[in-house]
């Protein structure tokens, strides 16, 4: 729905309730709630992940959005349906991205009855936007493009034991491993013996003047527009952040024929691989380290940006501001694990900056402090898709093993050694440090 509106030139969906500022999408992957609209009378629908269907009535909400009736008793019967049923399964996997699908490969291979949920209308998570060849080695699909990995994973899932439910959002997770799930207009429960949380991550925001203007998009949003819907986000883009995501999305923008005016990075060094930087540098895109964005300009949407150099305390240096004429400001300033459901279920959390912030405490088998609830992929700590796939397999193996399925020690050792190898070397330092801190946290909780 959001892509269709973007294609039609509509970038403002509603007004903020207090200050009436324009609101469009930011993350475009169902995480940030910036794109809420009223759809067929239902308020606060995330239109970035809602498929467009003929005859839908879509409008801007008034204020915070109103439920159709004041009487709370009618909420569950209108217009959706509360289904008074609790389904049962051996393993429930939340998220059908690289980690979730990989987990399902292992659980189904070991004979566990598995249900995979995803709130998108297709599988693959963010893999379906990764048009570049992956790094790593053969075992992790190196040299294969992310978009081509999804069918490879699907092929390995034993569909006689797996059910994949799309457009299904897990909205609650309880310590007895019961999930609340909303699928379209239906709410139901699902009780699983083992839960694997593979819910990915959300795009980080950056605070600067007018950072809420439509046209300030997360890197994932830009990828979604271009690589899923074939739409360009704008004509001239300022990329904020020179980690691998910022560099790769800059390259994809160039491939789509969009001008990348410059890439700025607040740190003195780029965070991404030199080879990714080299691809955009030889295409003529400058990269400025020690630079930040201080302001977006424009009334209804982005019309420009102001960038400035920063000092060693990350503060903008006076008189270094430059104005850039851009219509998109793309933020690629990191990700945060999506782990809220785990905390609701009572899993202990800790704050590890190297893993992206608040994460669920977990042991080497990726099991959290609530027995039977596992976490894998970016939800366990931000890393690459290749590590997410390995973690998914590990969580799947361990979950199935604890259900009493046949032992798998060899495969587990193999996965652990691949994970260790990927986290070796200078670029693995952050993950190594983060996972070491996690090990200490796990000890504290007796895992």
């Amino acid at each position: 729905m959001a892509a269709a509106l973007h294609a039609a030139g509509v970038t403002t969906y509603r007004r903020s309730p207090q200050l009436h500022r324009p609101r469009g999408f930011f993350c475009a992957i169902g995480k940030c709630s910036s794109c809420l609209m009223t759809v067929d009378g239902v308020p606060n629908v995330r239109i970035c992940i809602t498929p467009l269907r003929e005859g839908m009535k879509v409008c801007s909400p008034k204020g915070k959005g109103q439920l159709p009736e004041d009487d709370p008793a009618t909420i569950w019967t209108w217009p959706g349906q509360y289904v008074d049923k609790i389904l049962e399964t051996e393993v429930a996997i939340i998220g059908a991205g690289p980690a979730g699908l990989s987990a399902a490969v292992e659980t189904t291979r070991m004979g566990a009855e598995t249900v995979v949920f995803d709130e998108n209308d297709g599988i693959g998570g963010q893999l379906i936007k990764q048009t570049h060849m992956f790094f790593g080695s053969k075992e992790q699909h190196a040299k294969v493009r992310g978009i081509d990995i999804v069918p490879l994973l699907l092929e390995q899932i034993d569909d006689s034991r797996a059910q994949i439910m799309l457009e299904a959002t897990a909205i609650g997770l309880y310590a007895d491993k019961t999930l609340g799930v909303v699928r379209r207009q239906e709410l139901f429960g699902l009780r699983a013996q083992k839960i694997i949380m593979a819910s990915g991550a959300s795009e980080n925001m950056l605070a600067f003047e007018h950072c809420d203007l439509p046209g300030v998009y997360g890197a994932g949003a830009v990828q979604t527009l271009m690589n899923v819907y074939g739409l360009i986000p704008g004509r001239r883009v300022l990329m904020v952040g020179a980690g691998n995501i910022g560099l790769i999305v800059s390259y994809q923008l160039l491939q789509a024929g969009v001008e990348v005016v410059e890439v700025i990075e607040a740190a003195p060094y780029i965070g991404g691989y030199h080879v990714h930087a080299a691809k955009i540098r030889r295409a003529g895109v400058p990269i400025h380290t020690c630079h930040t964005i201080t302001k977006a300009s424009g009334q209804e949407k982005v019309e420009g940006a102001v960038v400035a150099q920063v000092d060693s305390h990350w503060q903008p240096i006076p008189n270094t501001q430059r104005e850039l004429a851009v219509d998109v400001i793309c933020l690629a300033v990191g990700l945060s694990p999506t782990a809220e459901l785990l905390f609701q279920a009572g899993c202990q959390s800790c704050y590890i900056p190297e893993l992206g912030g608040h994460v669920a405490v977990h042991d080497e088998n990726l099991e959290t402090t609530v027995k039977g609830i596992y976490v894998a992929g970016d939800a366990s700590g931000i890393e690459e898709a290749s590590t997410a796939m390995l973690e998914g397999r590990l969580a799947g193996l361990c979950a199935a093993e604890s259900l009493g399925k046949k032992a798998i020690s060899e495969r587990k050792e193999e996965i652990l050694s691949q994970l260790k190898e990927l986290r070796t070397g200078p670029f693995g330092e952050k993950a190594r440090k983060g996972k070491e801190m996690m090990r200490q946290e796990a000890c504290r909780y007796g895992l």
Partner: protein
Amino acid sequence: MAYKKGDALTARELAAQIPPKERLRRGPVAMVECVEEIPCNPCVEICPQGAISMPGGLNKLPRLDWEKCNGCGVCVSGCPGLAIFMVDLTEGRDRAKVALPYEFIPLPEKGDKVMALDREGNELGPVDVIRVQKGKRLDRTPIVTIAVPRKWALAARSIRRLGR
């Protein structure tokens, strides 16, 4: 290391990647512009000559055996970082051929004039496209070969299409 700031590789950083003169004289040879330790090794797997190795494991730098390399170009489209180029100095005294990975559309055609660019995107000058390889084997990373003045052989690393 300037490249850590997002700069292009300097002559010094590239020095170890440049094949020896007598090897360059003998025929096309790969130039592996991969100078940073990242977890990646497809080049080792795909080289049909077994000319690329990675002593020390996945996170180490690739090492090209110039004697084994026959300039076939498989690695040019197979490197996930698009960091391998083929140079050929056997085209006479003044000319050189450079084969580079090119993932943009529209793809130039053989005979087109294009602008040669260096590692920073600076224009070197117009050059001729002499070969365009594409197809399933190259998996959406076509290889464009340009004929350049010899002095640009180690500088020309990208192209920009010119208006027809």
